[in-house]
């Protein structure tokens, strides 16, 4: 059977890289003694795949993976057993039986919502911040993007769906950002923050939390 699960990745494990998260889950599955299915071939590995990666240092309450099992387990039982085995900071928040859905989760992704708490190195007035944030939505957002072929200038404006200031105090602000997230790519939040720092003429450290990945579940006959 195939299980699709949503999980959160919080503060204690926010520096664990995507590759290390895969190992973390594999080990947790072993501790939970799940009846995992394995790939064929020379170096069999559990059939586990993630919808997408999360940047190192970000937290999230809305990540997805799917995993194949050799025997039936109710999604509730799956959740209970895996959660008992996971380290602090990672939790399965919901799980479902994927039925006969065969595809990958990645193409189901549409967009992602981020909460970014900014801490300014020097105080920034609210008006200035709001002006800079709303300017992100006007016109092009040309950034230098590292690709395999070197550094390329690209416009990330089409990837940015919404951006607003949700909370403010002199040295801190919370932004809500919605960006495209799909199989073809998505909004790179760090590059967006780079532009914002430039337009603001001020630098800030930040904590970024992914609140939600919007998925199109309509292909899944549940």
């Amino acid at each position, binding site marked *: 059977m195939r299980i699709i699960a949503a999980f959160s990745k919080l503060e204690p*494990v926010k*520096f*664990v890289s995507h590759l*290390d998260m895969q*190992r973390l889950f594999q*080990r947790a599955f*072993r501790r939970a003694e799940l009846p995992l299915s394995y790939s064929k071939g020379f170096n069999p590995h559990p059939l586990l795949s993630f919808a997408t990666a999360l940047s190192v*240092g970000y937290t999230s309450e809305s990540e997805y993976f799917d995993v194949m099992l050799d025997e039936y387990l109710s999604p509730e039982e799956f959740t209970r057993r895996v959660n008992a085995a996971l380290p*602090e900071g990672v939790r399965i928040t919901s799980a479902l039986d994927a039925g006969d859905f065969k595809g990958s989760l990645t193409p189901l992704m549409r967009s992602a919502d981020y909460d970014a708490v900014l801490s300014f190195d020097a105080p920034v007035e609210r008006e200035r911040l709001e002006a800079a944030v709303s300017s992100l939505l006007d016109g092009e957002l040309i950034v230098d993007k590292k690709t395999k072929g070197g550094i390329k200038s690209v416009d990330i404006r089409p990837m940015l769906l919404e951006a607003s200031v949700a909370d403010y105090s002199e040295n801190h602000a919370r932004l809500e950002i919605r960006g495209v997230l799909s199989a073809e790519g998505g909004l790179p939040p760090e590059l967006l923050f780079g532009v914002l720092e430039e337009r603001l003429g001020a630098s800030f450290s930040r904590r970024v939390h992914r609140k939600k990945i919007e998925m199109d579940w309509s292909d899944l006959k549940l």
Partner: protein
Amino acid sequence: MNFSASTTAEERLERINALISRVEKPTRYMGGELNMRVKQGEGLFRFALCFPDTYEIGMSHLGSRIIYNVLNNREDTYAERCYAPWVDMEALLRESGEKLFSLETKRPLDEFHVIAFSLLYEMCYTNILTMLELSGIPLRSCERGEDAPLIVAGGPCVCNSEPIAEIVDVFFFGDGEELVNEFMDAYAEGRRRGAKKRELLLDLCAIPGVYVPAFYRAEYENGQFARLIKTEEAAPDCIERRIVRDLDRAEFTGDLIVPYMSIVHDRIALELFRGCTRGCRFCQAGFIYRPIRERRMSTLIEYADEQLKRTGHDEVSLFSLSSGDYSEIHEMVPAVLDRYTKNRISVSFPSLRIDSFLKDDLEKMQGVRKTGLTFAPEAGTQRMRDIINKGVNEDDLLRTVKDAFEAGWQGVKLYFMIGLPGETDEDVLGIAELARKVSREFYSMPKDKRGKGLRCTVSASTFVPKPFTPFQWEPQIDVDEVLRRQALLRQALKGIRGVEFNCHFSETSRLEACFARGDRRLAEVMIGAYRRGARFDSWDEHFKKEAWDESFAERGLSVDMFANRRISTDEPLAWQHMDALVTLDYLKKEHERAFEGIVTPDCREKCNGCFGQKCATHCGMHSARAEGSL
């Protein structure tokens, strides 16, 4: 602002986290892994278990994991871990003025009572300096006052710890499982009494296996080490190495911490036994872990079962100096394979020796991942192997290799050494000859019986003379000669199908030889090199030759005088106050036999009397034989 203690601690944590977020591999410093020990409460002794290399390497060291467990099993002590910060973290700590911190609580190291270092190889010494300095702790023991943490160290390098004798307060010689507990008992007692440092050190030096270097002074004559003079009446004349008699019942690792990042040995290690009965004459481990002491198979399997459940690891490794010598090996290999491979747990045998490896076992392993096989003939000719007492012959090697090829292996690693005492060009060329025969063995098999292509790696390291081996008096060959012999071998290996040469001479093998046989004068050399930027000396990309050259010159010393000198067997040795239990007479006798080409049998065939009068006291194998039960 509220400056209460908790706020300050929280703010510090916040600052540390900010630093962690800026390095290349944050998980090196993060802590919080599954099975990490957490302790709360007032009045705990804070013990920092430091490993002077990166997290990936330190976390792979079994000994440190054992000591971590032993200490944390004590109610009065909280042992936390700390690893050498990589250069990016070092730079951030210096820039921010933040002190080096433990993984468990992020507490600055200078707030610990005891700071312990594991000394596994000489080339990590400068990292000790980095770690002390980044903690705001003076480097030399004489500069540290009553408030400073006690700096202790254990591990194989303690058998000649003179090069860092002026840095460390207390050394632990030999197995640590019982010794650290005795140390903590005495330490706790001293603290309760409010003992001053000197008083405490006096208490400690009464514990067998404890070496307090400050109670001795070194003298030199004609530029050479002459003698060590006791400056404190109560200090012992010599320090006896500790051995845990019953390894099967000794404390072990407890629940293993499960790292987030991938580490060098990312698996459950089963230490089948400690010690080795072979007596290869270059091998320090073969002498300083004597006698052989085994764990029972049932104990090991119970442990593996439990730890697989507790960690979720997918690999178990049989780990010992020469795993094939384990008395229950032929029950053990099939048992672990049957038990684990069906659950897709792979089993690896890193040091299985060729002459004890049965074909049946190889066939059993077919279902398992074919992680490369490694063999260590060490020398290319029988003459040379007799000198070093490596009881391996060519026929055995070729037969085993053939069996392995038939069982589907196609990757083989062959380890050799060049520069061994008495080596001639013919011996060097013999290495290539042996590799050629291995290659022929593979390609002469019918195509359907073997793998597609051979991958045979020939590695040749440079011989390093080590204390407490029969070769401790022998020089290392000089750089030009190393390079010449390597070129000779490289040329001879050219064109052999499927064979790849991997030789690795670096300046670090010279420095390793120098520090292995060095004396107290090297501490200042090391500090000088450190000030000139020496760090992570075992990592080629970090090795700074000029820093070392300048620092040696500044002190009027040289690497050669320690590494490349033949020491005569009646000269004083800088490590002669350390009693590794194997007698000096025995080492001298082995030294003579080497050059006569006489092989010394394995202890399992015959006791060779390595502990002199004390064979019966120290060695279970000797006693068992004497009682006729062997």
